[in-house]
C-alpha cells in the first residue's frame, strides 16, 4: 500500500509536469505570435500568413528596452522579430557552424571588435542603404558597410572628488605614472571593454608603449581586479581606490538603481573624460550587421534602419544611458550633464584586429 501511494505521488508529479509543459509550449507559440503585436491583431495574422514577414535576430545585448523596441518595430512594419540572445562569441560560433543554412538575419553585439571578427569570418554582408548612411556617421560604420554602430559607450575615468581633484587627471596614459600607485581600480582582463580600450591604445601608441603602460597600470592597481564595472564604483566610494576605469552608462544605471544605497554611491562620484587634450576618450559601439546568408535580408535592413532612426536612438539614450550614434539625436539629459567630449579618432575595426594582441599584452603585464 505504502509503495503504491508513492507511485501515485510520482505519477501526479509527472502529470503535473506534462500539463505544465503542454500548456507551456502552447502558450509559447501564442506568445510568439502575439508577442510583437499586442495592439494590432490584424497585423499578427498577416505576419502569420506571409512566411517572409519576419526577421531573426542573434543578439548579445539583453536589455528590456531592446525588447520593447523590437515590439515597436513589429507594430510599425508588421515584421515579426524572433530573438536568440547569447554570448557574442558563442553566437559567432553558431553562425559559423550554421553556414549557409542559418536562420539568423541580423547579428547584434556590443563591441566593435566582435563585429569586426564576424566580418572577418565572412559572416556578414555589405548593405547599401541611404538611410543608414544618413543616420550613422562614417567612423561608426564598417568601411565595407558590413556592420553599423547603433550606440556608443565611453570608457572613462571615474573619481572620488574627496581624494582626487579634476586637475590631477589627464589621460589614460598618465594612470600608469607613479603618483597613482595603489590607487587605480579596474575590472579583470577577461572583460571585453578593457580589451578594446587596450586595443585602441595599441593603435594609437603602438604595442611597445602600450605594453609598458599596461605594466605601469598593473603596478598602480589598488587591488586585484575583480567584479564588474559597478563594483569598481563601489570600491571608489568605499575608499579602496581613488580612480576607476569604467563605462559611463553603469554610472547612469546606478543613479537609477532600485537600491537606494547604489544611488548614494553613484552620487558621490565624478566622471572625467580623459585624453581631451590629446587623442580623445575611448569609445566603443554596439552595432548590427546583416548576416551573409540571411534568409530575410530586406527585413534585416529595415530593422537596422529602424534602430538607427531618431526616435529609437533617443530611446537607447534615455533608457539605457548610451550615447546615440545618430548625430541628429541629443543624448539624454543625464548624459548631457556630464558634458561634451572629444572621441578617440581611430578606425573601430582596429579594436577587433588588435584584440588578441591586447589580451596577450595584458596577460604578460599580469593584469588578471
Amino acid at each position: 500500500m505504502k509503495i503504491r501511494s508513492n507511485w501515485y505521488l510520482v505519477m501526479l508529479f509527472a502529470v503535473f509536469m506534462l500539463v505544465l509543459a503542454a500548456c507551456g509550449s502552447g502558450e509559447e507559440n501564442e506568445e510568439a505570435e502575439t508577442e510583437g503585436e499586442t495592439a494590432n491583431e490584424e497585423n499578427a495574422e498577416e505576419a502569420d500568413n506571409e512566411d517572409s514577414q519576419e526577421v531573426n535576430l542573434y543578439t548579445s545585448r539583453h536589455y528590456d528596452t531592446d525588447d520593447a523596441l523590437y515590439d515597436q518595430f513589429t507594430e510599425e512594419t508588421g515584421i515579426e522579430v524572433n530573438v536568440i540572445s547569447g554570448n557574442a562569441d558563442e553566437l559567432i560560433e553558431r553562425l559559423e557552424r550554421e553556414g549557409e543554412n542559418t536562420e539568423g538575419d541580423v547579428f547584434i553585439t556590443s563591441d566593435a571588435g566582435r563585429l569586426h571578427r564576424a566580418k572577418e569570418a565572412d559572416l556578414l554582408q555589405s548593405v547599401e542603404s541611404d538611410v543608414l548612411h544618413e543616420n550613422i556617421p562614417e567612423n561608426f560604420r564598417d568601411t565595407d558597410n558590413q556592420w553599423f554602430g547603433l550606440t556608443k559607450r565611453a570608457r572613462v575615468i571615474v573619481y572620488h572628488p574627496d581624494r582626487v581633484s579634476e586637475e590631477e587627471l589627464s589621460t589614460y596614459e598618465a594612470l600608469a605614472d607613479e603618483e597613482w600607485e595603489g590607487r587605480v581600480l579596474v575590472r579583470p582582463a577577461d572583460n571585453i571593454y578593457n580589451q578594446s580600450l587596450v586595443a585602441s591604445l595599441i593603435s594609437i601608441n603602438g604595442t611597445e608603449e602600450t605594453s609598458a603602460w599596461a605594466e605601469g597600470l598593473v603596478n598602480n592597481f589598488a587591488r586585484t581586479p575583480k567584479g564588474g564595472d559597478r563594483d569598481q564604483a563601489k570600491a571608489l566610494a568605499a575608499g579602496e581606490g581613488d580612480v576607476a576605469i569604467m563605462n559611463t552608462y553603469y554610472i547612469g544605471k546606478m543613479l537609477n538603481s532600485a537600491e537606494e544605497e547604489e544611488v548614494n554611491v553613484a552620487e558621490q562620484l565624478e566622471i572625467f573624460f580623459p585624453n581631451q587634450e590629446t587623442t580623445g576618450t575611448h569609445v566603443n559601439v554596439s552595432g548590427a550587421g546583416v548576416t551573409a546568408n540571411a534568409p530575410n535580408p530586406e527585413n534585416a535592413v529595415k530593422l537596422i534602419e529602424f534602430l538607427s532612426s531618431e526616435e529609437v536612438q533617443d530611446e537607447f539614450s534615455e533608457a539605457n544611458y548610451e550615447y546615440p550614434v545618430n548625430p541628429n539625436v541629443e543624448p539624454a539629459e543625464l548624459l548631457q550633464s556630464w558634458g561634451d567630449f572629444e572621441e578617440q579618432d581611430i578606425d573601430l575595426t582596429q579594436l577587433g584586429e588588435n584584440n588578441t594582441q591586447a589580451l596577450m599584452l595584458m596577460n604578460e603585464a599580469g593584469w588578471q
Partner: protein
Amino acid sequence: MKFKHIRPTTTSGWGAAAVFLVAILILPTLFLLVRVFQPASENWDHIREFMLKDYFVDTISIAVWTGLFSVAVGTTLAWLVSAYDFPFRKTLKWALLLPLAIPPYIGAYTYHGILDYTGVVQMTLRNTFGLELSQAYFDIMHIPGAVFIFTIFLYPYVYAITRAFFASQATSLIESARVLGSGPVQTFFRVVLPVSRAAIVAGVSLVVLEVLNDYGVVSYFGIQTFSTAIFQTWFSFGDIDAAIKLAGILMAIVMFILLLEKFLRGRRKFSYSTTKVKPLKPVRLYGWKKAVVVGYTGSVFLLGFVIPVVQLLYWAALTFDYIFTKEFVSYIWNSTFVASVSAAAIVVIAILVANYTRMAKGIVPAVTARLTILGYSIPGAVIAVGVISFFIFLDEQLMTMLGASSSLVLSTSVVMLLFAYVIRFMAIGYNSIESGFEKVGMKFTEASRTLGMGWTETFFKVDVKLIRPAIFSGFILVFVDILKELPLTLILRPFNFETLSTMAYRYANDEMIQEAAVASLFIVMVSGIAMYLFHTFIEKEPN
C-alpha cells in the same frame, strides 16, 4: 536462437541498444575531441607560458579545497541527521538539500551583494553604527571566497548520496563498532567514512566536476582558472581549436583523478550488502551537544539557503513590479518543460545502459559505463559547439534526403537543446541509477530468472521496480541541474525561447542583480518543490 545467453552480449538487443545510445551521446563530443590532436596554433606558446601554469595552480587549489570542505560538510551533516535526534532534524533532513537549488553564480552575486559596500551588512554598520571598516573584511572575491561559495551551494551532492548510503548500508557495521568500544567520533572516522568511501567519491566527483566547469563564479571574482583560459582562448584569440585542446587536458585530468581513486582503493571492497537492513536508530542528544549540533546544522542551512534567499526576496521586492510580466509564466513553463523531458530521457537511457553494463562482462560494457561521464567533464559551452556541428550535419543529411526546399529542421528546434542536456547530465542520472543497481545486487534478478522469466520480463517486473528510489532521485537531481543550467540553454535554444535561467543571466550579466532576483527565486522555488517531493518519496520508501 535456441538458447538464451546467460548474460546479454553486445550483439543481443539489450547490449546493442545500450552501446548504440551511448555512441549517439558521445558522437558530438568526438566531433570536437579529434581536434585535440591537431598541431598547436601560434597562440599555444602564449597560452602555455602565461595561462596554464598559474591558472592550473588556482584551479587545482579551488577544486581540492572545495572537494575537502564539501566532504567535511556533506558527510558530517549526513551523519548527524542519520545517527542523532535533535530539534528540527526532520525538517533539516530535506532542507539541507535546498542549497542545490541556487545556481552558484547567483549565489556568488548574492553574497557579494550582501557584503559589498552598498550591501545590507556594511550599510547597517555605516548608517546605523557609524562604522567604516576596511573592505578587506567584507571581500569574498578571492579564492577562499570562491571555495566558500562552491562548498555551500554544492555540498548537497555529497550529503544526499552519503545519507542514502548511511540509511541503507552501514547500520550493523556502526553498531558493531560501538559494541567494540568505539565512541561516536571514532566510529565516524574509523568506520562510517571509510565504508562510505564509494558514495562520498561519487558525490564529491560531481562537486569537483561542477567546480572545474564553472565560469560564472570565477570570472565574476576575477580568479583565473582553467575555464577562464578556455574561454579567453576561444573568445579573445578566436582560437576554438586551442580552447578544445585545453578542454581535452581538463578532461584528462578529471579522468586521471577518478582512476587514481579507483587504484588507491585497491582490492578493498567498500560496499557491504546484507539481506537484513535495519534503519539506524538515532540517538537523542541533550545539553550542550544538542546545542552544538543544532547550531552547526542550522548555520549550514542559513548560509546555504535562508540568507541568500532572503536577500533575493528583498531585491525581488524592489524590482518585481516591472520585471514580472505575463511572459514570466511561460518562462517557468519552458524551464519545467525542458527540465522534465530531458530528465525523463536521461533516466530511461541510464536504466538501459546501467542494466546492460551490470550484467554483461568485458571491456565493452565497462568502457560504455565510463563514457557516460564524458559530457559532464567538459565545459557546457564547448559541448554546445559539438552539438551544433552534429545537428547541422544531421540537418544537411535530412535536406539531401528531402530535397533542397527544406531548411534547418532539427537545429532550430528545441530537440537540439534537449539532446545537449542529455549529453551533459547523463553522468548524474547514470551515477544514481548505477548505485541503485549496486545496492540491490543481482540476487533478485537471478531469482526471477530461475522462476522462468526472461531478461526483458525480469527487467520490467523486477529490476525497474527495485531501483525506484534511485530512479526518482536521479530524475530530481537532473531536473534541478537543468533548471539551473546556463551555457547550453543560452546558445542552443530556439528563437524566442526564454527560460528562468536565461532570464536570470540576462540581468546578472549586466550587473543588474536586483532585476535578476525574480527569475532566480523562481528557479529556487521550482527546484525546492521538486526536492520536497523527492524527500517525501524517499522517506516513505521502505529500505
